[in-house]
């Protein structure tokens, strides 16, 4: 008798004796750390946090070699950057509402709060455009200008991609097709949104205040 045949017979035997682990009743989606999507999102967060951290370190490294900082002598204007920080922080509230609604499987709630989030993203993207102009330096003036533009540019890339994938998800929540998994996506998207906002805080401090001390 061949090995595979022996195996099959043993398997049937085990099944007859009930020596199998039946998972047929188990959920087909789950939230938080139970979800592989959470781990994937955290992986992205780890990567991007590292990029931000290294860019911040680059800022201070270049500063330690400079006799004058900023080299152009003009630190960024505070208005737009601080305003955007407020908008971003405020956006955490509809974000949290969307997350909670998703975890309750509340479709109407998810739709409402995701739309509110999108309005916030319109606002912070618009203000971000003004921030670049208020940096008072160009990316090609000197190393200070380069690193400040890099910091703001990297974070902006995250704002743009986060806005886009939130938009896609929002539209999907209206058009369907919908299933339980989508609520997990909304929850994870909210987690990523938190990262984009919270990672802004040290970057804001470095860009806007790093040149003032």
């Amino acid at each position, binding site marked *: 008798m061949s*090995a595979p045949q022996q195996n099959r017979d043993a398997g049937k035997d085990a099944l007859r004796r009930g*020596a*199998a682990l039946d998972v047929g009743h188990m959920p087909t989606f*789950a939230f938080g750390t139970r979800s592989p999507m959470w781990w994937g999102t955290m992986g992205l967060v780890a*990567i991007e946090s590292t990029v931000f951290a290294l860019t911040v370190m680059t800022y201070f490294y270049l500063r330690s070699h400079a006799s004058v900082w900023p080299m152009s002598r003009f630190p960024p204007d505070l208005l737009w950057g601080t305003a955007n920080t407020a908008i971003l922080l405020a956006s955490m509230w509809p974000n949290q509402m969307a997350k909670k609604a998703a975890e309750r499987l509340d479709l109407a709630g998810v739709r409402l709060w995701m739309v509110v989030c999108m309005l916030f993203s319109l606002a912070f993207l618009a203000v971000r455009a003004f921030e670049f102009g208020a940096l008072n330096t160009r990316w090609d003036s000197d190393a200070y200008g380069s690193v400040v533009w890099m910091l703001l540019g990297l974070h902006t890339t995250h704002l743009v991609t986060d806005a886009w994938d939130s938009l896609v998800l929002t539209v999907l929540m209206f058009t369907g097709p919908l299933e339980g998994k989508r609520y997990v996506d909304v929850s994870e998207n909210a987690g990523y949104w938190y990262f984009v906002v919270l990672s802004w805080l040290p970057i804001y401090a470095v860009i806007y205040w790093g040149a003032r001390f």
Partner: protein
Amino acid sequence: MTVSDPRHAQYADPADSAGAAALERTWRDPPGIVGWFSAINHKTISKRFMVTTMVFFLLGGVLALLIRLQLAQPNADIIGPDMYNQVFTMHGSTMMFLFAVPVMQAVATYLVPLMIGARSLAFPRLNAYAYWIFTMGGIMLYAAFLLNAGPDAGWFAYVPLSGPQYSPGKRVDFWAQMITFTELSGLMEAIVLITTILKLRAPGMSLNRMPLYVWAMLVTSFMVLFAMPAVMLASTALITDRLVGTHFYNPAEGGDALLWQHLFWFFGHPEVYLIFIPPLGFISAIVATFARRPVVGYPAMILALVTTAFLAFGLWVHHMFATNLPELGKTFFTAASLVIAVPSAVQIFCWIATLGSGRINFKTPLLFVLAFFFILVMGGLTGLMLASVSLDTQLHDSFFVVAHLHYVLLGGAVFPLFGAFYYWFPKFTGRLLDERLGRWNFWLFFIGFNVAFFPMHVLGLWGMPRRVYTYPAEMGWGDLNLVASLGAATIAVSVLLFLFNVARTLRHGAMAGPDPWGAGTLEWSVASPPPAGNFEVIPVVHGRYPLWQPQAEPTHVTGMSNEWREVLVTTVADAEPDHRMWLPMPSIWPFLSALATTVLFVGSIFTPWAIVWGSVPVGIAATWWFWPKRSVVQERVRTEVPP
């Protein structure tokens, strides 16, 4: 317990042949040309990935032969300086970015699901995308090289040489963008592997029952997350310096040449461990099987892997000992570079103890692994020499370093990799590579390697710097260079022999069966090659070497669908069943997204605006990739169970 022991869990449901057939239909690749580009089965992608990385290995090897041809004699003019500088840059870049790291991820994406009792990787479409983006990046680099626009500033491209002023044209830009491609691929693969390993293990495979190879890949993948961003940032800053006039590395405007070195080596040192740690996993797997016993000291082995990973991030300045950094700081890195030898030493002692207390089945995979104990150990010891700042000031940037790096990379990674190929080839293809050819392959490689690289230690001590396209006859370096070149030719012959062995075996090799080596881990419990869904029934695991240990109950999982790509998600530490998940179906969108990304990346070599207009197709492709299909969703909703 023998090979044909029924505890090799190929249990089937009572509706067994119908179930197996349904499973095969569900998990196999779609047919046709569009199907070929849409395939996302992890084994399919992995085989393509392994073949692609081995193609790059061969290309890199040909470049090495060109180098050795030119250096075989003093004042040779087989290749002029411009071509030579491109050749050695392409050789290093190919081997480091297009072969050594990706091949380890490629092999892992095949083996990990099988070793942990899963039907698939997590995020199979992302895995496919990672493969495509890697391949396209490699093709871009070689296209540039063939158009005489190959990078020529060395595989680590120090500024200001690689900056806009001293490397005009697009050569270095192609190199820098190749980095973006390959690191994006590597980062995505790391996310896939971490999530797979932590969430998709078969029930009962708690973390302390996970094979050491899977631990190695988990540790490596975490390292990737923190190491690769450094080189992506560095190369992005280099591209902006070259393309739009930023001044990160321009000392005249406040930039710093050493900023590049810090950022690059902060990645670069962990990178060699990304190359070294997966083979440590290969060795544990092979030693256990061919010594007929579990590896000694499982907890110590894991601790060694984790310690090595952490320490690897604290060594990078040892690549910068010849710069004007403060001496006291350098001494810290000497100490760290010495300390990292300790966990590796522990692993080596554990393996020797395993071999010594086991019973040896002397087959080709073990031969290649034994080479590690000679070659890597020598490389590691020359590494300790280089760790001393004082010694390094003589040895740095000489052929001594060339010898060292090849001893650790080939001894630590390539030889174990060949061992892994001989070991797992029967699982991938169903056929056993020929033993006799394997031994010839091994001995030619081993002897050729030592003949090629040992003399380089001496050449370095005799004052020969690296990256020189020629040298004067009166320096007396000619004889040893000729010997080294002969050794390189021998390596080439051994690699040809390997290819011949593979080709011949694929045609008429001996059939392997599920478990030709009598091994203990789960991948050997399924057919060779495995069915499309890996396991006809998901096993329940009760020990570290499930095929060697008595089976306990429950033996396997029921209640999973054979009609849809359903996997079982378990808890992180103890692998208790948590929920079921449907993985996505094959799709052309990963491939198309990779194409769109390629257009964006290649375009941005020429103009920064490519980032803007290039994002549009990428955004569209990514959205289509994600957008669910109504028919599939309706079916899922029908059988949905909320948490």
